[in-house]
């Protein structure tokens, strides 16, 4: 699903965020991306979502060489990725339903189709009764579940999460991680950047460890 071939990223100000990173995350796998802050976790995720472009090396998503993706095609790459953020990034002037519906609206689905899929996604994250609520009225854990529902609603083959539990207490964090495992069980590839090492250790998925922009342990990543 994701393949990095000697990928380096140097920011314009001269900082080397990633240096010669190579790995392969097969379709259907679930892995954690770990490392201290500043180790390059966010940069790695940004390269996959084409929020940044690599300075050297090649990376592939679902067989497509992202180093060659034209600017106009970027939205269509992003539609294959469900993205989840530490600060949720919800639209606070819209209801839960409208937030979750956004990817489907962007993709231009029919109205009935949108309603059906949004309810299915909200059902999966356990928020079906909150579809008319505004995000501000929800707790942090609930907001993150809205974020996850939005990420999975158009059934992308890949989920990328950047510190999804960074703002949540341990119990909620565990619930969120279990939610990711459920999606992985039905075939979605999942890559989660996190520094919640205790939780990661207990879940027991392969880890990609970054240290100062380099991958420490090139692991054997197998489909779960």
């Amino acid at each position, binding site marked *: 699903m994701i393949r990095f071939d000697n990928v380096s990223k140097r920011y314009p100000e001269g900082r080397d965020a990633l240096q010669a990173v190579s790995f392969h995350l097969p379709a259907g796998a679930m892995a954690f991306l770990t490392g201290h802050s500043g180790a390059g976790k966010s940069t790695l995720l940004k390269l996959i979502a084409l*929020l940044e472009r690599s300075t050297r090396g090649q990376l592939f998503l679902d067989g497509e060489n992202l180093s060659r993706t034209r600017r*106009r095609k970027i*939205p269509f790459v*992003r*539609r294959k*990725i469900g993205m989840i953020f530490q600060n949720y990034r919800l639209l606070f002037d819209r209801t839960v339903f409208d937030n979750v519906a*956004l990817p489907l609206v*962007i993709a*231009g*689905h029919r109205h009935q189709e949108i309603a059906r899929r949004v309810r299915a996604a909200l059902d999966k994250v356990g928020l079906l009764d909150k579809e008319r609520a505004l995000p501000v009225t929800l707790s942090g854990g609930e907001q993150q579940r809205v974020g996850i529902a939005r990420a999975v609603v158009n059934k992308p083959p890949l989920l990328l999460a950047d510190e999804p539990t960074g703002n949540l207490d341990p119990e909620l964090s565990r619930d969120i991680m279990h939610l990711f495992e459920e999606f992985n069980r039905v075939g979605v590839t999942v890559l989660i950047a996190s520094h919640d090492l205790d939780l990661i250790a207990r879940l027991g998925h392969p880890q990609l460890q970054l240290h100062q922009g380099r991958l420490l342990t090139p692991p054997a990543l197998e489909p779960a």
Partner: protein
Amino acid sequence: MRLPAPLHVYLLRHVQVALNSLGRLYRAPLASLMTAAVIGIALALPSALYALTVNLQRLGSQWDGGASLSLFLRQDVSLDQARALEKKLRQWPEIGRLRLITPQQALEEFRQLSGFGDTLDLLDKNPLPAVLAVTPAPGAADATAAAGLMQRLQALAEVDLAQLDLQWVKRFQAMVDLVQRAIWVLSGLLGLAVLLITGNTIRLEIQNRREEIEITKLIGATSAFIRRPFLYSGLWYGLGGALLAASLLALAFFQFSGPVRQLATLYESSFRLQMLSPSGWLALLLAGAVLGLLGAWLAVSRHLAAIEPS
């Protein structure tokens, strides 16, 4: 695979976005109204001037006194011959009013107006010719038609000199031309103002919705998708401004039509103030919509690309 968006879904989406943009303006009524009002005033000014020149031109061609001709008959034409000529000319369709001034009448008039009465008594014979004062028919009162009429009258055997008083008709025409040119310049400038107003308003809107734009880009929205609501906002601003301009014009018309009619009556004219034609109204609305859309497009193309999620 079934296409996700057949045409009717695409059109429905456009209608939804258009209504959404309208709803957004409606939820901030004061700010929206002020922007629309500025646009409205900017559009109303050239439109009002345009309506004014259209009316002036009608006035110029309608006015009975638009052009008048004086036919000085030859000295050897007798009074009977002059009367016969008068009768003949009355049959001409281009001639509106006709008045024969006999040499005797002309002398009397001259005596009264000039104050040389005593001096005139010294003359042993009346030196003044008979004169036919001709006013062209309303349809033949403009400069070219009047000049044509003059040439035909000059060719008559009885006529010594046909004199056309075109001066003020020409001056009037020149003034209308000048005002029309000024309107073009003014329209250009105010059109530019509308463009800038919408552009700036849309720029602010883009800045206010920065977070939303970033998120939708993250989720895979195309530029066209992100652009659309802003373009519709621009369209609504322009259209709203044009509607306001139209209302201002209508209001001004009702304010002025009474006094103008009164004035015209005092001058014994049937002139009535005329509003814009239906196509004129349509052009006003269209101009507003196009300028609004164009202004939004300028803002969008300049500022949307600068917003990239991180």
